[in-house]
């Protein structure tokens, strides 16, 4: 099927199989390999991207469902010279080790902060329940999200 989506501000017209998943289209067709696939049951959250401003697990979204949507991936929120506050907070607080869960974690965390009004530690922990990290024990991720919340809300 033909779809047109805007990914990181760029319009893309693609012919994709009906059963193509958004995660695979981003990775294989558009070369946006920052979006990772860590499971097959929509449980790990490594594939989280924003679709029309909301966090979605792109392994569980058909590319066809994204037709007409605006999609933002980890590559679209900042770059090393101009990091998103959440990216900067992850670096500052050592909230990542192997880096594999990080893109999904950052995308989920941005969505969480944007949708919330003053998260505390428990709020961050509850809000990130859909993203698995095996390296950090979440301790520094929670710190990073709380720090980024201050930066994002004051920006």
């Amino acid at each position, binding site marked *: 099927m033909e779809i047109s989506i805007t990914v990181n501000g760029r319009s893309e017209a693609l012919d994709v199989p009906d059963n193509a998943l958004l995660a695979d289209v981003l*990775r294989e067709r558009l070369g*946006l*390999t*920052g*979006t*990772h*696939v*860590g*499971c*097959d*049951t929509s*449980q*790990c959250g*490594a594939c989280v991207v924003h679709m029309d401003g909301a966090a979605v697990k792109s392994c569980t979204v058909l590319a066809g469902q994204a037709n007409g949507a605006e999609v933002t*991936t*980890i*590559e679209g929120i*900042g*770059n*090393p010279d101009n*990091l998103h506050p959440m*990216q900067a907070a*992850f*670096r*500052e607080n*050592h909230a*990542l*080790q*192997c*880096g*594999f*869960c*990080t*893109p999904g974690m*950052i995308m989920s965390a941005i969505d969480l902060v944007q949708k919330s009004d003053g998260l505390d*530690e*428990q709020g*961050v*922990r*509850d809000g*990130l*329940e859909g*993203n*698995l*990290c*095996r*390296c*950090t*024990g*979440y*301790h*520094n*991720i*929670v710190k990073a999200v709380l720090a980024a919340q201050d930066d994002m809300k004051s920006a």
Partner: protein
Amino acid sequence: MANETGIGAAVKRKEDARFITGAGRYTDDIGAHGQTYAVFARSPYARARLNGLDLAAAQATEGVVAVFTGADLQADGIGDLPCGWTVHSKDGEPMVVPAHPPIAVDKVNYVGEPYAVVIGESLEAAKNGAEALEADFEELPAVVDLASAASADQIHENVPNNQTYDWELGDKAATDAAFAEAHHISTLEIVNNRLIPNAIEPRAALGEYDAASGLYTLHTTSQNPHLERLVLAAFVQIAPEARLRVISPDVGGGFGSKIFVYAEETAVIWAAGKLRRPVKWRAERSESFLADAHGRDHVTKAQLALAEDGTFLGLRVKTLANMGAYLSTFASSVPTYLYGTLMAGQYKTPAIYVEVQSLFTNTAPVDAYRGAGRPEATYVVERIVETAAREMGIDPAELRRRNFIAPSDFPYETPVALTYDTGDYEASLAKALEHADYAGFGARKAASEAAGKKRGIGFSCYIEACGLAPSQVAISLGAGVGLFEVGEVRVDVTGSVTVVTGSHSHGQSHETTFAQIISDRLGVPFENVTVLHGDTGRSDYALGTYGSRSLAVGGSALIKATDKIIAKGKKIAAHMLEAEEEKVDFADGTFTVADSNQSLTFPEVAFAAYVPANYPLEELEPGLSEKAFYDPPNFTYPAGAHICEVEIDPATGVVDITSFVAVDDFGHVVNPMIVEGQVHGGLAQGIGQALLEHGVYDETGQLVSGSYMDYTMPRADDLPSFTVDTTVTPCTHNPLGVKGCGEAGAIGSTAAVMNAVTNALGVASVPMPATPETVWRAAQSA
């Protein structure tokens, strides 16, 4: 050099820039022109004869390029997957090793064992082809229960009683004598639950073959690419090492599970050669559950003999260890030399005797998982010490103190074959007690009780042997490889530095910490040091990352290489300054001459080495690049005290960790931010084992916990924030005085949690994981 990027500074990580922007480059992110896709057909049965395999429909499936069976690999001379550590039984006989073909040939022995690989033009085609395979299985009764495995059906023709070895360590007669004199004997029967490692990046491989050169290139998710290459070359016989390049790019976590050489990358690299086309494979998570090596899985009976004053007299341990269906790469060493040797813990127990029978079952192979043997040992020692304290009415902290090896006792030779070089166990316990406000526990417990809750506190004073390992010790105990490490320091013409290390980083942050130590030693700006790793085409033969060895062994190799750089630099500087070499000193990036004001910067000397105009070429080679191999003289012995406090709601059985304190002694710390992160992650895995995680097979050998829906991974809302601190007794035998921090969290924490849970409930034992149901049942019976 004390500066903001030197040793001891909490430098932000170099590697983060790519990981937080989505620019990491993991194996599955890499593609090759014209690549094909591999899908493995996996056994649905735990144990079955494979009487026939009809490939026709699969081969005829649209887009299928080829279908290969175990027989195809065997016919092509592809060997078995070897186990690299030979353990000997009590009677001196070497362990019994069953054949382990990468792809099953005529029988399968666990659910998920591959019996064919289908290669397709697309992933979908390969999947369709695998669906179309017609396998004629004759199901056989599965051996699943570890406790009865020795008397169950024989799984492998050459392995009677399903036993690979029956091993012992320590002095049985002395231990028996100690028990005969005991005032009190504590007994504990415990199960160390099976865990499934679950690095968030699934294993993956991309095999390529260049017909013109005969060169194979394998990108794969390995913690030790050289070991992968060695096994694929020497044992599996893909190609000689010189024609096989193994690259581990960014790897998304390992925790041990990516040490091993598996069937999948073996088949992928072989098939790339057969087809002369690139072959790509990435595990689906369900495949990770089924076919990654699992961890732990012991059944143990332990007894501790004590004198009237609580002095430990003797320890007896008898363990059954589950090997799964085959011997994975280092499986045999985990419940023996990484387990029995740790039974002294932090204590002066004079007599110890350990017996371990390792048995096969029709389950996934079991091998090293974060801590590897040492968490199991700590769980035995720290649970039984806590048990003894309760039975004898002695404060658990006090009982430990009475039996600690004292700082004045080092070097301390244990009755189980190790010599601890240094430590101060009292110091870490004292600091942990303070952080945990042990004095205030009684009041908190009373407050909980008033609210209808049960509160408990648990200790774990662990020790581990890491920094694997002195090669000759390991080889004398059965290791099939040396355990040194290699490091290369290449000074560039203008004085920047490229470092090549054999230690692979898959989360450990070597690109940062190794740059810190080089920057510190050479006075080169941190940002001008680049660390490369993970490519057999770049580095000499290296042993890789496991057993918390990167800094202690790999870092020491770099220090040795750096010493050579400085020594050569002094010669060059002496020549350039027309001074005696003995009078040249080097500090903070500057060569100076004693009693003079002459000096040269490090870049000036580097430049002279590569543009040797004013240079003693007759006695010194040009260039400034040095390499060193470092073989440690002993293990390192990180140790510490973990204290867990829990509050349990007896109505629901939910365990709330109200505080977790870890005070660890890792020797000198290069980057405290990174060390704390390593501890946090280890704690999460240890707490996960205690409360959440369990690899469960049903009686037919089906993996019940085969997805994230069924296997409880610790999530953000399952864990508390941690209180982490350190004490320092520098390692006495490596140049940095470092010990290793990667596994300590996972080693120490499990026993602390379970001691807290049993303390809260007032029961002797609760099985792991202490899920709400388990805890609720225990609370009802308490």
